[in-house]
C-alpha cells in the first residue's frame, strides 16, 4: 500500500510526536501549574517567552534553534563536546523543534484546566493533613486530567504537522528527519508524484482527525469520572 519511504516518514513522524509529548508533558504540567496557581516575579515574561513560538514564523523558531543548538551554536557545542550528543540534523532535533512548537499548547491546556479547579478543594485537602506534594498528586493533577489529555493530544497533533521549524533546524534527510509533512512537501516538489503526495495528505488528515476524536472521547471519559456518571 505504502512505499518503504512513505512508511519510514509515517513511522518517523509518530516516533517524533510520541517523544515530543513525553518530553513536554512534565515541564508543561509544572509550568501550567505555576502560571495557574502562583504569583512570581517575571511571570508575564515567562508567559511571553513560552507563547512566542505560537506567534513567530516557524522558520524563525527553527533558525533560532539552529543558532543555539547547531554544531557551532553555544548550547550545541557544549552538548556535543561535553556530552557527545548532537541534535542538529538528527531525529532528536526534530523532537526538539516539535517540542518547542507544541509546548505553548500544552502549557495553555494545563493552565486552563488547573485554573478551573476550585482552590478551596486544595485548601480542604491541606487542612486534612495533606502536604503540598500530596495535594498536587491527589487533588490538582487528577482534577486537571481532562486538560492534560487535551494538551497532550493537541501537542501530538501539532507535532505531527510540524514543518517550518523542523526543516529549518534539522533539514530534510530521508529516514532521519523527513517526517510526514516533509515527505509530502518533497513529493509536491517532484514531478509525477501526485499519487504518493495525495496518500500522505490523506494519512495526515486521518491522523489529525483521529487525534481530535480521541481527545474528545478521552476528555469526556475523564469528565464523566469526575461527575460520577
Amino acid at each position, binding site marked *: 500500500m505504502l512505499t518503504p519511504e512513505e512508511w519510514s516518514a509515517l513511522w518517523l513522524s509518530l516516533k517524533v510526536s510520541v517523544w515530543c509529548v513525553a518530553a513536554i508533558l512534565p515541564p508543561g504540567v509544572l509550568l501550567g501549574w505555576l502560571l495557574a496557581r502562583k504569583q512570581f516575579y517575571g511571570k508575564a515574561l515567562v508567559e511571553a517567552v513560552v507563547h512566542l513560538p505560537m506567534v513567530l514564523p516557524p522558520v524563525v523558531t527553527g533558525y533560532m534553534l539552529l543558532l543555539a543548538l547547531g554544531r557551532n551554536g553555544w548550547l550545541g557545542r557544549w552538548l556535543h563536546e561535553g556530552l557527545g550528543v548532537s541534535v542538529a540534523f538528527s531525529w532528536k532535533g526534530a523532537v526538539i523543534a516539535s517540542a518547542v512548537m507544541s509546548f505553548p499548547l500544552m502549557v495553555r491546556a494545563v493552565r486552563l484546566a488547573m485554573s478551573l479547579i*476550585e482552590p*478551596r*478543594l486544595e*485548601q*480542604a*485537602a*491541606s*487542612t*486534612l*493533613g*495533606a*502536604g*503540598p506534594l*500530596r495535594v498536587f498528586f*491527589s*487533588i490538582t493533577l*487528577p*482534577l486537571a486530567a481532562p486538560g492534560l489529555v487535551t494538551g497532550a493530544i493537541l501537542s501530538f497533533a501539532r507535532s505531527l504537522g510540524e514543518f517550518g521549524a523542523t526543516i529549518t533546524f534539522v533539514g530534510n534527510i530521508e529516514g532521519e528527519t523527513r517526517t510526514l509533512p516533509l515527505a509530502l512537501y518533497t513529493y509536491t516538489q517532484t514531478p509525477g508524484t501526485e499519487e504518493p503526495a495525495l496518500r500522505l495528505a490523506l494519512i495526515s488528515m486521518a491522523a489529525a482527525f483521529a487525534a481530535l476524536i480521541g481527545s474528545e472521547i478521552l476528555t469526556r471519559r475523564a469528565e464523566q*469520572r*469526575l*461527575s*460520577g456518571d
Partner: protein
Amino acid sequence: MLFLDVGLNRGRFRLEVRLECDEGVTGLFGPSGSGKSTALGIVAGLLRPDRGRIVLDGETLYDGADGVCLPPHRRRIGLVFQDSQLFPHYSVKGNLLYGLKKIPERERRFAFDGIVDLLALRPLLNAHPRRISGGEKQRVALGRSLLASPRLLLLDEPLASLDTGLKAQILPFLQKIRDELKLPMIYVSHALPEILQLTDRLAVLDQGRILAAGRLDEILQRGSEARHFGPDNILAVTVELHDLESGCTLARFGNLPLVLPLRTDQEIGRTAYVSVHRGEIALSRNAVPELSIQNQWPGRVSKIESRGSGVQVYLDAGVPLIAEISPRAYRELALQEGEIMYALIKTRSFAYLAARTMLDQSASP
C-alpha cells in the same frame, strides 16, 4: 484552647482580631464581609497574617516576630466550608478516608465507624459526592474533617447554603459533635439564632474588628453592641413562670416583667434568649389600658436615627431596645430625644432563640 491575636492588611480591608477560645463552641458572628472567613483562614493556616500570634493548646502556630508559621497540614485544625468542597474524584468513603488514612493508628481521635454512625453516613459510603443532597454533603464534609483527628474544628457558615428544613436536620449532628466528641469548635455565621443553637459564647466581628466577646447575655447587658445583631432586638430574659391557664410564659427582662408565648420546655429560673423585630415594637406616649398588647414598658428615647424608609428609635428601658417606625408616625408623634415613651410589644411578636439550659450542657467539659 486557642489564643489568637493577629493583624492583616489587604488593600482597603484591615483585620485586627484578638480572640481567646476555650473548650466547647465559640460563635463568631458578623455580617458578610466583616472578615469572619478571613479570620478562620488565618487560624487554619490558609492565609498568612502580617503580624501577631496564634497559639493552640500551648503550641505556637504563628508568630510574626519569630517568623514561625506552621503550614495548614501541620496544624491539625479542621475546616468545614459553606459549600462542602468534597473531592469529586473520590467516593463518599474516599473523601472520609482522605485525612484518616495518613494518620498513625494511635494518633487517631475518632474511629471511622463511630463517626460514620454519628453522622448517619453508612448508606452514603459508596455514593458519589455529586449524587447526594446538600445536607448529606455537609455531613460528609463534617465527617471528613473529624476523621482527620483535628484539635479544633472551624465551621465556616456550614448551614448557610442549606434551606431551613435541612438546617434543622444538620444542627442535631453539630450538637452531637459538641456534646459527644467534646471537640472545641469555632462556629462562624451571620445568623445569630443558628449560633445560639450551639453556644451563647461568641465574638461579634464587624469590619475586621472584634466589637464584643463573651457570653451573649453579658454582651447584651453592655448594650452598645445591640445594633450589630441586625433588625432584631435580642433579649436575654429570665424565665419565671409557665402560666398554662393564660397560655403565657412570664419572664423578667432586667427589671421589666415580660409576657411571652407559652413554651414549657424553657426551664424556670434560667436565661432564655428571645428576639423581637424592630418593626414589631409600637411606641406610645402613655401606657394604653384596655389593649390586648401585654408588654408595655416605659423608656427614655436616647437616639433617633432616620435611615432609609424607617426611623430607628433607640429606647433606654433599663435595657436598650430599638424600635423602627415609619417617618409618618415619627412626624405625627413629634418624637424628641430625651422624652419618655412606652414600647408596646405583643406577646406573639416574641420568638425564642435558645435557652441557656441547653447551651449549659456544652460548657461543661
